[in-house]
């Protein structure tokens, strides 16, 4: 049979080709047919998850919760040095120098990125701000978020740290970070579904060894990280518990 692999839609478009290369590599290593299906939206992907159509997934921490607790997926690895962190920025000319300078009804722009938005809102709490007393605009990507700051359509914007770091010099010269999260324990992870349960150990071993295997380092480079780190089911379970505290 052909298994289906997918990637959380919040990955950087720079790595689309990388995921196809990874898929080919994994098929060869496992001698299994795997079809890579990429989704533009979280909703489309979640629908397929609900319908049990996904067997392998590079999941964001939110979806990992459903996948592990309700769908019987097993965590095998996480990318090294790629914790999901958020950065809150203002326009360069803004008067705002820290979160506490922000007032009720300020305009907050963000992309459709659940963990970043959760972490971002948490970082606004010290100013007594929450979803109920700010004006939120959800934009299609982080460049649009940066533009909304530059055009002064919003007062603050939330960014995935990695996306902020990869912005062009031109954009970066027009926005200014006021706070960055340093949570370090929240990360995307690679999960294996129930249909491949008998290959879990093989997949765990392959990914954790990938940087030593033939072609491994090149494929990893195309995904934007150097190696995978082992993630036991308990590591993922604990991360889900931590995520749970953040939505309170």
């Amino acid at each position, binding site marked *: 049979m052909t298994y289906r692999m997918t990637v959380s839609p919040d990955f950087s478009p720079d790595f689309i080709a990388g995921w196809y290369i990874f898929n080919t590599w994994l098929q060869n290593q496992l001698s299994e047919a795997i079809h890579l299906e990429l989704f533009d939206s979280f909703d489309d992907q979640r629908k397929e998850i609900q319908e049990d159509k996904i067997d392998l997934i590079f999941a964001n921490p939110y979806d990992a919760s459903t996948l592990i607790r309700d769908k019987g997926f097993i965590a095998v690895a996480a990318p090294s040095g790629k914790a999901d962190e958020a950065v809150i920025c203002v326009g360069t000319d803004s008067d705002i120098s820290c979160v506490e300078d922000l007032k009720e009804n300020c305009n907050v722009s963000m992309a459709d990125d659940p963990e970043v938005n959760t972490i971002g809102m948490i970082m606004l*709490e010290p100013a007594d701000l929450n979803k109920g007393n700010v004006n939120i605009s959800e934009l299609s990507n982080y460049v649009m978020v940066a533009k909304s700051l530059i055009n002064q359509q919003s007062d603050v914007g939330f960014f995935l740290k990695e996306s902020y770091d990869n912005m062009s010099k031109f954009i970066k010269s027009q926005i200014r970070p006021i706070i960055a999260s340093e949570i370090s324990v929240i990360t995307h992870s690679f999960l294996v579904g129930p249909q491949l349960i008998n290959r879990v150990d093989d997949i765990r071993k392959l990914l954790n060894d990938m940087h030593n295997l033939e072609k491994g380092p090149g494929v990893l480079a195309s995904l934007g990280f150097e190696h995978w780190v082992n993630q036991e089911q308990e590591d993922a379970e604990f991360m889900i518990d*931590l995520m749970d505290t953040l939505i*309170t």
Partner: protein
Amino acid sequence: MTDIQLNYHDGTSDNRNVIDEEVPFPEGKLIVSRTDAKGVITHCNQAFVDISAFSESEIIGKPHHLLRHPDMPAAAFKDLWETIESKSKWNGYVKNLRKDGKYYWVYAVVVPNIRKGKVVGYASVRRKPSRTKIDECTELYKTMLAQENEQ
């Protein structure tokens, strides 16, 4: 600086320095710790070590009352334990005592770690509270503590 005797729930007590000086919550960070099912600390992150001024080896193996501040009413912790033991999430504002006697305020969320239906431990994630909430809780806890002392 005052030396205050703190009596804990488990019957133990300790003499601790208490200084009326606040230490700010670390920006952008979360303070994380984890316990076994009995509440004994098994893990903590670097932010926990830094803000508490204890070393990791002084923290691991101890109950969280290591951080108990005398300005905290007992009712807050009674509510915490009743909530988490019934497998629910607890959240609240806590004034914590550092090793050097200074204090720091946190907004804490405590969750039971449930595996295969059983509570195997607890985790707490603390984040930066707003000044408004700290001021509200300072007043509230003063009243609660006064009531507790009358009884």
